[in-house]
């Protein structure tokens, strides 16, 4: 038994979910990776995200695109997960502005030190060091969303998103290409 009778619009809900999982499954996995370093916790987070997306489609009203809806739900679940984790492991998170102004926050992390030259590991560590609102914008940008779409998902104005993306690109260029403080 799987409790199927408890949900009135199960077929539509399943269809929405199946389409979203097929289209955005890899992006959701990357999202979980950016929020959670521990592999077991990451698997749990990913499952929670999928479950939340499926449940959410029971009340999806079509006022935004499925992609926007899925990203909102996924990030909201990941944020709640991150808040619970931070209570037991309170790290200082940074805004994009703080990140631009100071040295590489990933340096003290032993996991990153061993993979110091690995750009993806460094990019992931950089994302994890950000405060949730900035982290979401960075990830949505990395997934290839335009500023307007990021604004729709995040609830910020397109102007605010453009400013943050400008800052982000400068930070990335500084750290990954032009011999930032981590390129020692």
């Amino acid at each position, binding site marked *: *038994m*799987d409790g*199927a009778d408890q949900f009135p619009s199960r077929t539509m809900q*399943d269809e929405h*979910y*199946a389409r979203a*999982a*097929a289209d955005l*499954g*890899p*992006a959701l*996995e*990357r999202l979980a*990776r950016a929020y959670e370093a521990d592999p077991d916790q*990451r*698997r749990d987070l*990913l*499952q929670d995200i*999928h*479950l*939340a*997306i*499926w*449940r*959410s489609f029971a*009340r*999806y009203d079509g006022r*935004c695109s499925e992609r926007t*809806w899925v990203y*909102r*739900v996924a*990030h*909201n*679940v990941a*944020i*709640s997960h991150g*808040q619970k984790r931070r209570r037991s492991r309170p790290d200082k998170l940074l*805004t994009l502005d703080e990140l631009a102004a100071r040295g590489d926050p990933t340096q003290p992390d032993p996991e990153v030190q061993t993979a110091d030259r690995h*750009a*993806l590991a460094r*990019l992931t560590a950089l994302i994890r060091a950000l405060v*949730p*609102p900035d982290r*979401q914008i960075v990830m949505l*940008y*990395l*997934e*290839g969303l335009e500023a307007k779409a990021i604004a729709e*998902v*995040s*609830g910020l104005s397109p102007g605010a998103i453009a400013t943050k993306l*400008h800052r982000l*690109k*400068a930070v*990335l*260029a*500084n750290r*990954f*290409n*032009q011999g930032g403080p981590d390129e020692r």
Partner: protein
Amino acid sequence: MSGDPSDFDPQTLWQSQAQEHEPMSLAEIHQKALKLERGVRWRNIREYVASVIVVAFFTPVLLHRESWMMQAGAALIILATAFVAWQMHRRTATNPIPEAGQALRDHHRQTLIRQRDALRSVGWWYMAPFAPGMVLLMMGRWFQSHVSSRSLAMDHLAILLASGFVVLVFGGIWWLNQLGAKRLQQQIDEL
């Protein structure tokens, strides 16, 4: 602006990550949803059982005929237990769940505000309801009901120590919650 350098494309790098996990099947999703609902049901049952234990603990005091203050105190504590159980049920039932599809900024802010308010108000909905009953209970012990095997002075000392302990525990819980609320307020201000 620096722009993306030609030899480093963060979007391509990010999207080129290999997948670690197989996607969940619909059957697995349905199973997990059922498990979640069972979990919520069990959490509610645990809370009700805890309330029943408190009520069972104070019910004998209701029959303690030599002190009307203790009887009234026990009755108030039982009422307070029911009130707190109702509050907890109401508060957990109305929590906005992440799958509401809210914009990220709104969800994040509302989550923090909800947590802050819960911590700030813990004094009135979780602690204050027990105060009248506790005070009456202690007054009943002080004025109307003494342990015969102890001297009056020693009995009063025991009551004072017990009262002080209760005040310390309640005060400590309140203080920790206010501290947590203050930290959350800082996070809200930073948004």
